[in-house]
């Protein structure tokens, strides 16, 4: 489904990696590995179309993602480093806005259910500024439950700041998405308890 062809990434005047090619089929989970600063986040941003590769292209279902941006972004869910939460809004408002802005428009009851499922049932009406780091991340992750129709999930360090139970729960959610035919690409430094360990792409091998 997803093809990365001969990608090269330039940060400032430093070439981070080049000649990176990879094909991913439906149902596959890929973990991007490598030490800090090797370009994991840069690679994810290139795959999403937030950044341009210096060379090469990304193909989704046979079409160059730059040519067919609208369709590609309809099928993509990207959760980055920052949780994309505004301090003045409540988790429910933040979640609803994130969904509405990306064109999903779920019902309010579904959003409440997603927040309860991720363990924020008691914090639904609190402003985001009083939430802890882990709780903020959970609000972002609640979108996963509302985005099962989007086949491609790209997650940057999704396990950061989560407690043990939440990590296990998230790992199970990701595995289920793959079983349903989705594609998951993630970076993590933690050993997450996946039933089936994901394929690993070590960026150190293509680093310059």
């Amino acid at each position, binding site marked *: 489904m997803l093809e990365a062809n001969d990608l090269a990434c330039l940060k400032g005047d430093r070439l981070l990696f080049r000649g990176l090619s990879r094909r991913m089929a439906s149902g596959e989970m890929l973990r991007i590995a490598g030490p800090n600063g090797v370009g994991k986040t840069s690679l994810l*941003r290139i795959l999403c179309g937030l*950044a341009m590769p210096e060379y090469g292209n990304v193909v989704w279902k046979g079409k160059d993602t730059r040519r067919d941006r609208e369709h590609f972004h309809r099928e993509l869910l990207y959760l980055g480093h*920052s*949780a994309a939460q*505004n301090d003045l809004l409540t988790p429910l408002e933040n979640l*609803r*806005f*994130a969904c*509405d*802005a990306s064109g999903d428009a779920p019902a309010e009851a579904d959003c409440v259910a997603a927040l309860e499922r991720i363990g924020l049932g008691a914090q639904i009406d609190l402003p985001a500024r009083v939430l802890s780091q882990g709780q903020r991340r959970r609000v972002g992750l609640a979108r996963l439950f509302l985005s099962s129709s989007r086949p491609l999930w790209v997650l940057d360090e999704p396990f950061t700041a989560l407690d043990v139970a939440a990590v296990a729960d998230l790992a199970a959610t990701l595995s289920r998405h793959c079983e349903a035919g989705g594609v998951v690409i993630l970076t993590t430094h933690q050993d997450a308890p996946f039933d089936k360990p994901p394929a690993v792409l070590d960026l150190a091998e293509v680093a310059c």
Partner: protein
Amino acid sequence: MNSLLGPFLAVLRRDLMLAWRGRADVLVTLAFFVVVVCLFPFGVGPETNQLRAIAPGVLWVAALLSTLLSLHRLFAQDHIDGTLEQLLLSPEPTPLWVTAKVMAHWIVTGLPLVIAAPGLALLFDVEQGALGVLTLSLALGTPILALLGAVGAALTLGLRGGGVLLALLVLPLFVPVLIFGAGAVDAHLGGTGADAHLLLLAGGLLGALALTPFACAAALRIAVE
């Protein structure tokens, strides 16, 4: 169509809600406008004829400066907390929600100025008949300032010292708006009628509305890269 309007309305609603929750920030812009306008009579002296002559220019320059004061806030918070990235990944066209953001920004920072302007104009003893023209010129002109300013705000997003650079970048672009805006009142008082000035402002507004969201979208893509 419904799906196109979805993100537009979501952004508009959210930004208005955020402005309401952070009311103090909004009041600062209006207070700045009022204070700057009120300073002029102290500086120039209480000569009525003189005050009447400079009133349109003073109100317009003050409106322009208070617009500038709030511009850097337009995308800054969303850039820091990652919302901007998520918006750029929205399948809907970027210029659409950029327009919603600028519109919310104008409703919150520009509209209060337009409403306050006639009252402040009375301080300068501006003729009653000219108050309508002044308000109309501001109502047509301040959205242009917001739209042009949004391009500047997007271009300077995340830069060190972006605030000063933003001022240098957009102030020259504001000059034609200032000329026709303040000129409208003068033309009305001079007896030639303000129609030409107001039509030019309206044309400028439509032009800015059509073009700046695309420039803004391109600048935002560069800013997050």
